[in-house]
């Protein structure tokens, strides 16, 4: 059985009359990267706050690293790292003092602290500027430092709340590279809030899509693509006879067929290899010039799920 880092059951949180999170039930396996997607105000940050024990749920339960969030929040925080909505860096202090402080917070012995500061700042190419007040740094550098701080005590679980938000594309790409390396190197489970779909597609093994506090999509990127619509095959050629079309329709993987001039559009029932279908067409006498297989992108999945029952979605980033 897969060990779970996070398990929530009907987790809900209200702020007065506003329902910020509604019956969230997810499971995040240990060692995986989980992406939580949704527009601003969807409930992503509230979820992280609940999982870290910073807020109490109105209803439902959750376990993080085997601990109940309501009764053992401190045990959870001891084993977790967090880069929250704001980076939490003390800008008047140097990078070295920022990490030194959090090293002391996590009660890491002095000699280990020093070695760890050097290791992390060197890996993130910040070592040379470790003595400067962080206020002089770029936003990207501060985010890197915040990442180093979150990983400083080698947490089992890392919470990241939109880690690349507000960064320029180059800085965001560098931070993603660093994150990928650090996650691989440190072997942590990651729960990442983002509205950057490319980031989620690249880093996450599992994705949850949330809208107005409700989970509207959940699974691996491939599962989600399948939820939003099966692949489609467009074949251009000649001699698509009635007999050929009948044979195609008889195949279980074929959902529907539409013929228009020299083009066949086939809706597939599932994600399958297309070579046998093309081979069958050719054997039946059809002449095939071009085959194009298309599948919904994560962006399309996201838009489909978010826009269901809602015409407008504001402020999300599809880069």
């Amino acid at each position: 059985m897969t060990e779970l880092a996070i398990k929530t059951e009907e987790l809900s949180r209200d702020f007065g009359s506003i329902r910020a999170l509604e019956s969230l039930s997810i499971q995040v396996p240990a060692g995986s990267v989980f992406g939580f997607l949704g527009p601003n105000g969807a409930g992503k940050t509230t979820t992280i706050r609940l999982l870290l024990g910073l807020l109490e749920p109105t209803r439902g339960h959750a376990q993080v690293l085997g601990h109940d969030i309501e009764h053992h929040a401190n045990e959870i925080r001891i084993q977790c790292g967090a880069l929250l909505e704001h980076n939490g860096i003390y800008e008047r202090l140097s990078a070295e003092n920022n990490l030194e402080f959090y090293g002391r917070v996590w009660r890491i012995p002095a000699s280990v602290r020093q070695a760890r500061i050097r290791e992390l700042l060197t890996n993130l190419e910040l070592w040379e500027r470790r003595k400067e007040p962080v206020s002089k740094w770029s936003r990207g550098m501060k985010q890197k430092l915040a990442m180093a701080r979150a990983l400083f005590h080698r947490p089992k679980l890392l919470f990241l709340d939109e880690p690349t938000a507000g960064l320029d594309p180059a800085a965001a790409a560098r931070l993603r590279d660093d994150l990928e390396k650090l996650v691989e190197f440190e072997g942590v489970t990651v729960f990442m809030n983002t509205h950057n779909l490319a980031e989620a597609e690249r880093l996450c093994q599992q994705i949850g899509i949330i809208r107005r506090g409700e989970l509207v999509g959940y699974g691996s990127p491939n599962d989600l693509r399948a939820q939003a619509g099966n692949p489609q095959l467009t074949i251009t050629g000649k001699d698509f006879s009635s007999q050929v079309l009948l044979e195609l329709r008889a195949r279980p993987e074929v959902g529907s067929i539409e013929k228009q001039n020299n083009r066949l559009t086939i809706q597939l029932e599932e994600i399958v290899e297309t070579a046998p279908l093309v081979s069958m067409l050719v054997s039946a006498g059809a002449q095939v010039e071009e085959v194009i297989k298309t599948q919904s992108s994560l962006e399309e999945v996201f838009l489909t799920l978010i826009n269901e029952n809602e015409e407008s979605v504001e402020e999300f980033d599809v880069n």
Partner: protein
Amino acid sequence: MLTDITTIIWKETREFITLRPGLRGGWTGLLIIIAVFGILFPLQSGRDWLSAPTTVLMWAWLPFILVNSVVADSFAGERERNTLETLLASRLSDRAILIGKISSAIAYGWGISLIGVVVGLVTVNISQWGGEFLFFPPLICLAIITSSFLVAWLAAGLGVMVSLKAASVRQAQQTLSVAFLLLFVPLLLLPLLPNNLQVAAQNALGSINFQSVIIIASIIILLIDLGLLMVAFRRFNRSQLVITGN
């Protein structure tokens, strides 16, 4: 818990030092305060600086000002600069954070005041040297040490209350300045009274038992300090801070 409190004090101390960077702020500002209270006033007052009961009032006033200057930054500033939530997401308990921050502010105000007292003592001895070491009468000495500590604590307690409600550091500092005026300005207005009232006031002050006044005032301030601390323990609560901080 003690390790966590000292960790917070370690961080706060570094933040205080960098609060007003540059020649005009930071260390220079502190040196000016010590020069005024530890050199200028003792030179003007001479031996009276050691024995006059008003000395106690001055050393109770100074830590209030000093603590006020840092406590709003420590609490409201942490929230305003968006560093509070990350701190709350760490393994530190609410109480360790609160006590660490209050202790840092008290240590700052009380510590600098005591440095001023020692500098003043040296100044009086140098300027009034007559072959023997001059020192405070024991009651005055005890009163200075106790009252400056209790007033620093009072300022820190008030600072926490105000900062937890204030929208910004500036607002917290403005509110604390008003509190300061309410507490101390009546004393500063004493010289502006008509002569006959001043004489009456001086006679009244001269007739009171200094020891009793110090003890009663200390007990009252201590009770207020403890009350403020209890309220702060209740209000400095993770869930509440996360909700109000965002």
